């Protein structure tokens, strides 16, 4: 494997890793929405 091939492989790994990290946005959004749902539920139960 040449230096250039190694650099390319490193570059592809980095792209795949960052693309994978982006998929964390979905559970993060769900967690944030869940917090809102809990607060709204408290409002509806205790302050409606």
């Amino acid at each position, binding site marked *: 494997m040449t230096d250039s091939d190694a650099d390319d492989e490193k570059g592809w790994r980095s*792209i795949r890793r960052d693309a994978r990290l982006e998929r964390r946005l979905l559970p*993060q959004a769900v967690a*944030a929405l869940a917090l809102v749902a809990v607060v709204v539920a408290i*409002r509806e139960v205790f302050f409606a």
Partner: protein
Amino acid sequence: MSIDWPSILDDGVIVVLLLCVAAGTLPVISTAFQFLVLPFHAFVNHYGRAAPYTPNVAVIVPAWNEGPVVGASIDRLLTLDYPQDRLRIYVVDDASTDDTPEIVRAKERENPGRVFHLRREQGGEGKAHTLNHGISRVLASSWAQAILIMDADVIFARDSVAKMTRHLADPRVGAVTAYIAEGSRDRNYLTRFIAIEYVLGQLAARRAQNVLGAIACLAGGAQLHSRENLEAIGGRIPTGTLAEDTMTTFESQLHGRRMVFEPHALVLAEEPRTIDALWKQRLRWARGNVQLTRHYRRLWFRPRRGHRLGSVSFGLMWFSTFLLPVAMLLASFGLVVLLVLHSDLAATVFRIMWVSAACTYLYSIFFALQLDARTGRHAWREALLFPGVGSFVVMVSALFPGLLENDVPGLFGLQLTASGRIDWTLCIYVWGAAAMLGAWLARAVEGTRAGRVLAPLLLYLVGYGSLLCAITIDSYVKEWRKADTAWIKTEKVGRVVG
């Protein structure tokens, strides 16, 4: 049949007042929209078209009296995880009067063929002119395939340039910007607020803009252009505006090229530590935005082929920021007059407006804290208090009716009187507008002996957003009066963690 004019007039007034309050909810709707679009970046992103690509990059560093920071910035550029024979650094010294020329010349001697010192004997015309001096030199030779424009104080993470260039493998992409994070080693309350602002405004909002296909601004501290893109917009950064980076971003998109925000390319920057310094920096940005709003007046809300700047979603995002203080004033006005005319209706619209604001705040702040855990760890208090203690109280009041008016006083055997209830209602209705006054006051007292304690307390009370709104109002006034547009540089002293 007679027409009941008084009733029609009454209904007309009510509709106008409701529209005023609705205007106040537009920024909330815009924020909620952006944060709901944000998770789609998990799939709608540019990684599928990125590829390992390391073009010849000419880095242009504008420098005016940057002695304390420019040496460290050059050193970091020289140790980036990027093929060093494909990176050249051009420091454009804008007639500095400190030791900037000596520092850069020393680096030039140590790194022949990699660091270049370009001196402007007549300086002080602003950043765009300084950059153009460097760009004209770089474009005169065929070596550079990409041009990275940065600020003299920023520190690039070692892999950040390679993470940016990989998007230029797609020829449709004209420019790429990075995540500029607040990076001071000795943080204070203001830099922590700014850190949260950058998470919201970059990691969240620019990802949403990636999804929607229109970027509002390539950060001036880290914008990588393909050579073709810079040549297409005339081979120079537009001058004549205080927001040269935003105008460059717009021009690039109007020429049909795509802009990409790369959230994993980290660049650390030093940000203002006093309200006064922040005010001057942001006033420049806000005045630039006023100028651009006027300059591109035929662009807004007119969808065209080739770019998405005219889309309704982009227009909503742009104007909800640009007109945020107007929206807050209109909402407070509408609520107070409705309170006098129809208090029940006022209570209903207040609840709708602030419950939606509270839900958006909870969702966006909790999301933001997850986007950048490092910033979240050291600035979680500023994240929670980003809208200010006052707005926090208003949101609690809207979310949990009776809690603050009845339940909490009741714990101490107290009860609000009828007039006290009206005073309380009035206070929470006008809070959005009054908070901007509080932000202005925070700046006014900052320089006094008591200001060291009072200014932070006031800012925590009124919130960081109110400070930005107050600055935006100042920008309207300064532009209307055609005040002096001299470039006021933000002082940088080298506080960024390397």
